[in-house]
């Protein structure tokens, strides 16, 4: 299967890449999401701007109270890099469960986030870890909180003239931890999430002082499960408190049936995986 014909450039700098963008172009990093869509001819950009050869975008950096993950950092690196595992555990766990070995070797974390699939793993991790998306255009740089980034199915807050050049994540502080878990479409952890959840907690004196919970695969976009987080905050993190919070996993979220599960089943899974993610986040926090 060949995609439709297109023009291709591989600029040597981010400035050149930004200058080439227009309404008929698409940015490609690893290509793991874009190329299958182009082969199926579901999407046929006139110009592919391959940022894969731009130096410096493949770095994971310690930038003080945050870590920064560049646009070309691959899933395999996100899954294993010590800085990410320590400071964005949920994102690293989600990256480890993204695609398969070959996909993780080629696809990028920022690419998966920009693609904004409703059932992707890493958006949930980014939401729970409070990632800041750094979007560059020819006219400047914009920082977009993860909570505002995932707009709709395959739609992020990025404009056509912007490139997601990196994401920044606050470093893990004392008593903080996060985690991600899912049921994959092919069972176990394989493939996109039928439903998945990420959780981040800050514990203090035996109770949960702050929390964020995010779900993926169940609605129109990966999104924060705010009711679950509110239920956790101030609780003692006991099994009954976690269960009560998990019960609110899809409160305020429109659950949609798809090929992989009914609304009822996905609602059930969301609760199960919110519970598992919170338990694992708590275990990581101590």
């Amino acid at each position, binding site marked *: 299967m060949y995609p439709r014909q297109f023009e291709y450039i591989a600029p040597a700098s981010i400035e050149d890449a930004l200058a080439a963008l227009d309404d008929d172009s698409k940015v490609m990093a690893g290509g793991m999401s874009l190329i299958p869509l182009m082969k199926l001819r579901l999407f046929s950009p006139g110009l592919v701007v391959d940022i894969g050869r731009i130096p410096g975008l493949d770095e994971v950096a310690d930038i003080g109270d945050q870590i920064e993950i560049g646009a070309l950092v691959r899933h395999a690196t996100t899954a294993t890099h010590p800085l990410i595992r320590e400071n964005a555990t949920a994102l690293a766990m989600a990256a480890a469960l993204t695609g398969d070995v070959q996909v993780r070797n*080629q696809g990028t974390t920022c690419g998966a986030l920009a693609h904004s699939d409703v059932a992707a793993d890493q958006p949930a991790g980014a939401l729970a870890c409070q990632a800041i998306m750094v979007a560059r255009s020819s006219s400047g740089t914009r920082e977009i909180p993860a909570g505002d980034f995932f707009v709709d199915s395959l739609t992020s807050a990025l404009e056509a003239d912007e490139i997601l050049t990196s994401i920044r994540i606050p470093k893990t502080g004392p008593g903080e931890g996060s985690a991600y878990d899912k049921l994959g479409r092919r069972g176990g952890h394989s493939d996109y999430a039928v439903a998945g959840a990420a959780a981040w907690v800050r514990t203090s004196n035996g109770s949960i002082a702050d929390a964020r919970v995010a779900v993926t695969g169940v609605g129109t976009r990966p999104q924060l499960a705010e009711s679950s987080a509110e239920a956790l905050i101030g609780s003692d993190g006991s099994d009954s408190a976690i269960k009560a919070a998990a019960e609110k996993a899809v409160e305020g979220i429109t659950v949609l049936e798809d090929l992989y599960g009914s609304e009822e089943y996905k609602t059930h899974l969301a609760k199960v995986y919110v519970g598992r993610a919170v338990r694992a986040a708590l275990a990581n926090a101590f």
Partner: protein
Amino acid sequence: MTINGRAVTADVEPRTLLVHFIREQMRLTGTHVGCETGYCGACTVHVDGRAIKSCTMFAVQAEGSEITTIEGVADGDDLHPVQEGFWERHGLQCGFCTPGMIMAAIALLDENDNPSEDEIRHGIEGNLCRCTGYHNIVRAVEYAAAMIRGVEPPPPDWEKGS
């Protein structure tokens, strides 16, 4: 780019997929085209040492890279230990998935030459065998891992008795 150590140069359309470049322009047909959607892994090759699916990469993305295909893993007439493992432990039935399985297994063993059965199964999660011959594929990889470590491979299942 180089393919199996040989420098090659060619002009391609941007939409030429790496697998088609390898098979049709380089005439290396050991790399198979299976599902064409990135699921089956029959097209797995190594790009700069990383196992990737060549049906989901444009040839232009691999410009300047070092490519290894199934044709490049044996040393002359000496099979790669993973190839030998597939031979010795009957790791194939129809053989269609085999080149991709072997390339995925080599990448796995490059990182971990003593994987558990679970790690082997995770390491080949991106490769589908429609004969469902996974059992013997796992045994083949275990055999190869032992050979790479220089230890006696586990006996074949058919010599273990019931």
